[in-house]
């Protein structure tokens, strides 16, 4: 068996043999490891029934389990309404308590009364690109399963480091372990992006959280833990973004920042609808992932868009009405409940940039449970041309006050009109 596994790793077996080898390895791993994987349940105290489920796994013999933050997020938000419970592979259940959470990397450490049981070894080395890896969990409450897939390295454009797992995770497997062929944990199941396109949190992040969890004392305010983690994360991100020089590229008749951060991807197009009485060119750039706080609240997104409008056909009134229709804030799809955020406070002013007159509007709202963090919306439109105009809109979720001001200042000072 070991020989077959080594051969498969060097690509010396035929495809059918590989499949057979992988399948056998999966069944061996399942048989050996199933007693280390648990279903994690959030139980509504009122009804006594489970309200959400996920997976978790033991990481030491002291009863520590690892799972995703989003599996236990509901409990963190309302600990008076919910409690946590585990169910082992034999169907036995027991109480668990939350020890620590890492909202940024979507991880949590739990503690159960199952001390002394078998546990997973947290791996030291990453698998090779294309190597067979395995993921365990309890999809849709159907029972414990193991699936196969391929390790495809880190996602280079992710703001929050993730492993690309070419396998098919399903709801309920979140928080389960991703294993290499030796049964060592290389990551934690976290999300899926499409068919055979899933994501894992690297095991290094789990190790860091586990280390912090062991030093935790009782009576932790988890909202405060989240607030500090989020503040630190945005501080690192925006300081990096603001301090590094931005590459400037031409966008129609503008010189503008382009690809301002490695985690941001841009797309663009020109609207060539023959019925349009104007030309419209746009470029949309956004970070590729976000931080899950709870089911109605995400954060961490940064989105910006450039719009270019030009027309020889429209009169002045029509052209400015067109400009007005583009002078709006992007829909920052992050929070919709008044328990989570304040109302937006907005301004709109005339601003002079580079000798030209602009109309700028900023809207801000604060996170009610995570004080000091804000959602920012910004839009600015050129006013001096009656045949051509440029609009820049930007939205940033979960940003501190000083970074709001620094980001806007740098952004506005980078807007240049090419004559």
């Amino acid at each position: 068996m070991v020989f077959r596994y080594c051969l498969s790793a060097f690509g010396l077996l035929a495809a059918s043999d590989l499949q057979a080898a992988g399948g056998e390895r999966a069944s061996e791993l399942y048989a050996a490891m199933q007693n280390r994987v648990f279903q994690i349940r959030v139980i509504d105290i009122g009804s006594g029934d489970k309200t959400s489920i996920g997976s978790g796994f033991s990481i030491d013999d002291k009863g520590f389990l690892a799972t995703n933050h989003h599996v236990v997020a509901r409990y963190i938000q309302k600990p008076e309404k919910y409690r946590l419970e585990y169910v082992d592979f034999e169907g036995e259940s027991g109480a668990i308590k939350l020890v620590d959470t890492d909202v940024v990397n979507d991880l949590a450490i739990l503690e159960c009364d199952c001390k002394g049981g078998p546990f997973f070894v947290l791996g030291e080395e990453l698998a090779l690109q294309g190597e067979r890896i395995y993921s365990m969990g309890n999809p849709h409450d159907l029972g414990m399963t193991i699936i196969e897939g391929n390790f495809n390295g880190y996602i280079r454009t992710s703001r929050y480091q993730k492993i690309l797992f070419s396998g098919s995770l399903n709801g309920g497997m979140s928080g389960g372990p991703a294993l290499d062929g030796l049964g060592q944990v290389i990551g934690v199941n976290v999300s899926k992006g499409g068919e055979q396109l899933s994501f894992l949190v690297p095991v290094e992040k789990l190790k860091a959280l586990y280390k912090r969890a062991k030093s935790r004392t009782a009576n932790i305010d988890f909202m405060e833990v989240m607030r500090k983690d989020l503040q630190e994360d945005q501080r690192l991100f925006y300081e990096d973004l603001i301090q590094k020089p931005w590459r400037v590229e031409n966008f129609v008749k503008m010189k503008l920042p382009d690809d301002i951060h490695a985690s941001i991807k841009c797309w663009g197009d020109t609207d060539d609808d023959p019925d349009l009485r104007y030309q419209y060119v746009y470029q949309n750039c956004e970070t590729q992932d976000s931080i899950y706080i709870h089911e109605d609240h995400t954060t961490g997104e940064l989105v910006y868009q450039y719009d270019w409008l030009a027309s020889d056909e429209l009169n002045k009134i029509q052209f400015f009405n067109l400009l007005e229709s583009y002078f709006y804030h992007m829909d920052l799809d992050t929070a919709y409940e008044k328990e989570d955020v304040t109302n937006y406070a907005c301004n709109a002013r005339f601003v002079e940039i580079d000798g030209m007159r602009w109309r700028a509007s900023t809207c801000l709202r604060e996170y009610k449970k995570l004080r000091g963090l804000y959602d920012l919306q910004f839009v600015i439109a050129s006013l001096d041309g009656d045949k051509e105009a440029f609009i820049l809109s930007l939205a940033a979720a979960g940003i501190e006050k000083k970074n709001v001001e620094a980001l806007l200042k740098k952004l506005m000072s980078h807007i240049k009109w090419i004559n």
Partner: protein
Amino acid sequence: MDKLVFIVGKGKNAQFYKLDKDVVSVGRALANDIVIADGYVDARQLEINCAENRLKVTLMDYTNPVLVNGRPIENDSHFIALGDEVVVGRTVFSLHRESEVAEPTQKLFMARHLYSGFWRFILPLLALLLVFSCSVLLDVLQTPEKIEWGFILRNAFVFCLVIVVWSGVFGFSGRLIKHQHHFFSQLLIACGFAFLFMMAEPLSEYLGYAFDNETLVLLSFRLMVFMCFTGLLGLMLRLASNLKRSFFVAGGLCTFVLGAFWLFDYYDAEEFTPYANHFSVVKAPIVVFVEPLTIEQYLESVDQLFSEIEANDTDD
């Protein structure tokens, strides 16, 4: 000899009695010299003695007070002057000399055109056509999208239809209440105010934009809407009903209805919304009275938003 004239009521519905006697009885009974059909007036309410160039009122009943220029008569008899306003029950009367000079004649608004002949019909129809044309023109001049004539013409037609139906309702009411429909006059008035109403939104937006003041947009728009509807309703009620204070009634109605809408808007704005509602008006800079800020000044205004959030949160 210059006779005294006893006037019961006011305005077009007043009744006039020329007095031939020195002592005149006033009351609800038919035996009185001046008969007042008012349930709050006694059968024989009072007497007025006009002898010796003095007007002496003698009360015969005390069920309800008799007021002279708003003040109740305290004694059994009281001297009044020519032109004093006396209230008995719910009826007003006054005494005047027949030689008193009449007030100048009021001029009717466009009487030659509105009340006679060809223009009575043509002028309102021309006004309706003007409203239709303005509605189409405003849409065409303002829309940056492809001109969809069917949509624009249908909008203008529906707007004009609303004006005709509105005028028809008031015309019908006039027919029922005053036996005169005044439909074409109603139509002309409605067209005039519809035109003003069409201009209210762009005018208020340009005004607010010129001063960079969102409140000014809101206030000027609301003021224009209030004035439009009060004027429209006031004039139309004057033609369609016997109301003496039609503008007062119209103003009251508009205050109530528009006030209710605006109150609803106010409380709606206080509610939580996940959307960023900003002053989104951007107009052609025809006239702008506000100097642009520098980037640093603008960032100071952003800084104030943080204080605003904190203050609003404290209020909650």
